[in-house]
């Protein structure tokens, strides 16, 4: 491959068709309650880590949903696993397991 001194910029829009959602399906298998989220934001509002940083667990799992693993980066490491999010979730999503599972799946990258 030749080097031109620049590369093709990646689009900022979500290009879903080209993405493999295999990792999402595996997450849904690991923690089925994930599918129930209706994005009320209760988790982010109560999040212990979110009181100190811009960590937004709802955003994190939406990024994961669309396979934006790069943008997720090290975000999940900010989580303290205290479980408040799980406790407030009106849809009964098991967020703690979701976070650990996401970290495991992302670790494979």
């Amino acid at each position, binding site marked *: *491959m*030749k080097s*031109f*001194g*620049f*590369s*093709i*910029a*990646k*689009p900022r829009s979500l290009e879903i068709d080209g993405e493999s959602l295999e990792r999402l399906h595996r997450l849904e298998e690991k923690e089925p309650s994930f599918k129930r989220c209706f994005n009320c934001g209760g988790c982010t509002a109560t999040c212990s880590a979110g009181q100190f940083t811009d960590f937004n667990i709802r955003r994190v799992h939406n990024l994961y949903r669309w396979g934006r693993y790069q943008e997720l980066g090290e975000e999940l490491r900010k989580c303290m696993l205290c479980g408040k999010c799980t406790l407030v979730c009106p849809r009964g999503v098991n967020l703690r397991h979701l976070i650990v599972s996401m970290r495991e799946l992302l670790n494979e990258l």
Partner: protein
Amino acid sequence: MSKRYWNQYQKEIADDRYFYERSCIRQSFFPGSEAAFLKILREELGKDIHDDVNQHTCTGIGYHSDVVPFETTMTVVARLFSLMTQAGYENYVPSCVTSFGVFTEIVETWKEQPALLEKTRKLLKETTGREFNIPKNIVHPSDIIYKFRFELRDRMKYRLVNRYTGKPLKVVEHIGCHYAKIFPKHGVGNAEFPYVLAGMIEAWGGEVIDYPERRHCCGFGFRQYLVQQNRGYSLANTQKKFESMQPYEPDFILTNCPGCSMFMDKWQYVIAEMENKTYDKDGYGIPVLTYEELAGLLLGYDPWTLGLQLHQVQSERLMDKIGIPYNKNEKFKGVSGKLLPYPEKPEHLKV
């Protein structure tokens, strides 16, 4: 009814007596195109078109790259108009879509702000001692070819039909953004239904492909490609278009803008070398033609005189499909009759 609505999307295109202004970059990248245009107008259609020896840039690239201020651009453009006035013409025909955009923009500005017109007249007078009239009609050469597309069709030797299958060729048409996106009413079909190239393709037997990113910019974008670090954005736009048109398997791309022809052609090489990806089935890339080259080809002009060999993606396979004969040995014969050295072959893109 529909015809009446369609009339609202037409523009006025002068019949004859054109003042031609050449493009800065086309002369180096597609040197045969402008010559072919003049030939078609003079020999096939018998029109009066003036090609002035004193013409110069319109500053379009500098203007859109924020290098040249608007006042300067207006004065430079005024000098071009004064050349036209001096030569006794009223219909201005800029070869370049960027120039076309700049002229329409300036003329519209003068209409809204007469003070600027006066200032420009003053500046031109002070600097060069020249005076000018505003052109009656500014049209792009593609408008003229569009206007006379049926006349040309009758003189053409070939049609846009695949001679092996008998089906119309599938053509992607791409219109320069500055043709109809800045002042929609100055384009055929406005910005909503740009028809200038599609009209030619349909008239000459081809089939226009309507693909999702049809109206997307080619990626030229002035500031994007001028700075090396930004070229990735330019390239990404072009790639987006290619990704979108690829499933339709187009036979070639037809453009009316120098930037678009250049970038859609050359970026195919860059993408191939970067990612080993081409957008036709066989790895040769999709040929990109200007409307003059296409008209010339169909009228039976020599492809090497039209300058097709200077494109990145080569057109032999397309000519084979249409049935246009060409001499392989004369591909790189110079004007002097001597063979020029062959260009270096790309690693991934086949030629």
